[in-house]
């Protein structure tokens, strides 16, 4: 009897044995050296090339913003009835990207997913930089940016008080809370590694700067105890933010009465989309970084595989949400809602190919002849967000970095299109057909948005240059050597099946 139990246990343990999180049996010293040296060596030529390009783009954005502020929002293509267009599209796009970082660092931490350790630092940095890019747009779209302090509940001689019933105000608090908690969480996690950089520093200046940044970290038992408690609390604070921030962003639309926006499915749909788009951006940035710095032993193919699985999961949720929006539009019986979904989004020229289908042929022919003005945006979104990530069901696509990179870029584009579709296609045909109008971006729209990629990349490049892009001490903790039992196997009668397996 006892033997049978042992055997089934062995078999179970064998099944759940996982591939090691750090491959090629790298030592602790190798990890420290490999990660820390990125910040210590001279910046390679490619870094300067990329940094020059991205900061030039960032300057484009800054100049466009300066032009916008000095001239007015009229330099954008906004009009009536499209009062929100690329500005809010870009805001939602960037804020969504941040969510992967928070999910990786907070939720995967609380659920003890050890594979997060090698990607959380960079993903969190990405969160911060994405929120920086996101924050620009709502700030500048208000027009008179010097009045933006009206958003803060400060007693003033105008007796202006905020309208706390407005989701736009909730947004201000949601995003600023998100940024504050994210930066605290990220910095707290950085402290032990900053101390490592300080201890390895050769020059006085480096010792001074990293010495200040490390906040006097010595790595004593008591400090670790405080650190772990602080990190756990911050993870607990960040966890609801993964869900709340993008829910609040979705309220900007969902609490309005615009057909196409006024939908209860928005909060979960936005959150799934944010995680979906965020993971795609994490991979878009991490895969080149991994290749350049030779970090394949730390960010293994298993890591990429897992992230691809999250992408296919959340991408499918998003696809389900797209379908459900149509169902609700039909089921609600609201003619305006139906009109938005069919005539402003879905109807495409290729519908006329189906004019032979019995029963629905005439309708298809008519829709094909009168397609939605933005049908190309809608179908780009469907292709990029729903069709492309389905390739990740196949192990082949999850295991080949080049495919992962290509598909993730489709997702990046698709998530931008999603916000564009939601915002512009709902607005451009108002309740009054006399005010219908198309949106055309101006060069200021285009360069402000393009420039934010420069801001994002420039900040990320500065980050990998000056801070350890992988959490050194956490990765060391998932090594087999970090297990207190490591090397003491002689004392136990360990089943042969477990020998050599990672713990």
């Amino acid at each position, binding site marked *: 009897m006892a033997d049978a139990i042992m055997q089934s246990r062995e078999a179970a343990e064998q099944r759940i044995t996982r591939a090691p999180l750090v491959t090629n049996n790298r030592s602790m010293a190798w990890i420290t050296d490999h990660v820390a040296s990125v910040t210590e060596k001279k910046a390679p030529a490619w870094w300067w090339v990329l940094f020059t390009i991205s900061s030039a783009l960032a300057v484009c954005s800054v100049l466009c913003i300066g032009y916008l502020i000095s001239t007015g929002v009229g330099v954008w293509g906004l009009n009536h009835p499209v009062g929100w267009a690329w500005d809010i599209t870009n805001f939602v796009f960037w804020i969504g990207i941040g969510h992967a970082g928070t999910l990786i660092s907070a939720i995967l931490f609380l659920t003890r997913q050890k594979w997060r350790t090698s990607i959380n630092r960079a993903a969190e940095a990405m969160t911060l930089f994405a929120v920086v890019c996101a924050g620009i747009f709502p700030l500048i779209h208000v027009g008179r940016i010097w009045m933006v302090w009206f958003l803060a509940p400060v007693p003033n001689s105008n*007796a202006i008080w905020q309208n706390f019933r407005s989701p736009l105000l909730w947004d201000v608090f949601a995003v600023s809370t998100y940024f504050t908690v994210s930066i605290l969480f990220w910095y707290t996690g950085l402290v032990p590694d900053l101390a490592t950089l300080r*201890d390895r520093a050769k020059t006085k200046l480096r*010792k001074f700067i990293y010495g200040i940044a490390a906040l006097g970290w010595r790595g004593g038992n008591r400090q670790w105890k405080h650190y772990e408690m602080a990190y756990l609390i911050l993870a607990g604070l960040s966890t609801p933010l993964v869900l709340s921030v993008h829910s609040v962003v979705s309220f900007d639309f969902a609490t309005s009465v615009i057909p196409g926006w006024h939908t209860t499915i928005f909060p979960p749909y936005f959150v799934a989309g944010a995680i979906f788009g965020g993971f795609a951006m994490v991979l878009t940035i991490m895969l080149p970084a991994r290749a350049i710095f030779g970090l394949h032993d730390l960010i293994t193919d298993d890591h990429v595989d897992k992230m691809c699985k999250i992408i296919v999961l959340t991408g499918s949720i998003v696809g389900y949400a797209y379908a459900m929006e149509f169902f609700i539009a039909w089921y609600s019986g609201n003619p305006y809602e139906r009109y938005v979904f069919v005539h402003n989004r879905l109807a495409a020229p290729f519908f006329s190919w189906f004019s032979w289908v019995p029963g629905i042929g005439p309708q298809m022919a008519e829709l094909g002849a009168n397609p939605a003005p933005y049908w190309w945006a809608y179908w780009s979104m469907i292709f990029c967000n729903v069709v492309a990530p389905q390739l990740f069901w196949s192990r082949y696509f999850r295991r080949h970095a080049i495919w992962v990179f290509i598909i993730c870029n489709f997702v990046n584009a698709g998530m931008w299109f999603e916000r564009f579709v939601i915002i512009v296609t709902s607005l451009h045909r108002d309740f009054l057909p006399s005010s219908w109008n198309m949106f055309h971006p101006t060069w200021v729209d285009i360069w402000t948005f393009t420039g934010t990629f420069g801001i994002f990349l420039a900040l990320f490049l500065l980050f990998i240059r000056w801070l350890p892009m992988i959490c050194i001490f956490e990765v060391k903790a998932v090594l087999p050597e970090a297990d207190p039992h490591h090397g003491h196997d002689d004392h136990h009668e360990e089943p042969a099946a477990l020998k050599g397996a990672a713990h």
Partner: protein
Amino acid sequence: MANFFPRWANWIPLKLLLIVMVLGAVVTGGIWYYFTPKYTNVGYMPAQPAPFSHAIHAEQLGMDCRYCHSHVEVAGHSNVPSTQTCMSCHSQIKAQSPKLAAVRASWETGTPVQWVRIHKAPDYVYFNHAVHVNRGISCHSCHGQINEMPVVYQAQPLSMAWCLECHREPEKFLRPPSEIYNLNWRPASAQEQLAMGAQYKKEWNVNPPVTCGGCHR
């Protein structure tokens, strides 16, 4: 690694925190006091092209406000009198006074006297004089004791919070229609004002707008 920072460096964060807190309090207090129309605008008394004294005209001579500001009851804008209004008296009285040189020059050339505006509402604020003076708000409520001013100055901040003080509680300021232009009129007591104001408010159906669109049209 040897100690890179001296022992006193341990106190820097605490000292910094203290400095930031003190600075924060000073900056907040400073802005709260100095960056308001109460500080920046009240008492604004620019030199005018001719030294017109409301104290002489309105108080000593007892002229009615409406003799010069003739549109105040019927228009949104309360007019500054034209040169013709001045000259209707001053062609006879003190006709050669050097203080009236600017008025005579205007009369001869046809160019209006360039009076310096004191009470400015921003261009995004819609303010209607007629509505106020016809419904129990005296000149005194906004312009102060102007009948005693040798030179006009701004007596009230004219900030939005100040407007709202009255728009939220008009009964504190409404007065009998006969006393609108009597700047020396005072209610017998605060209680009486409230009782009278409440009655006027009800009778005249005074509902001052407190929404954005009321003034920012």
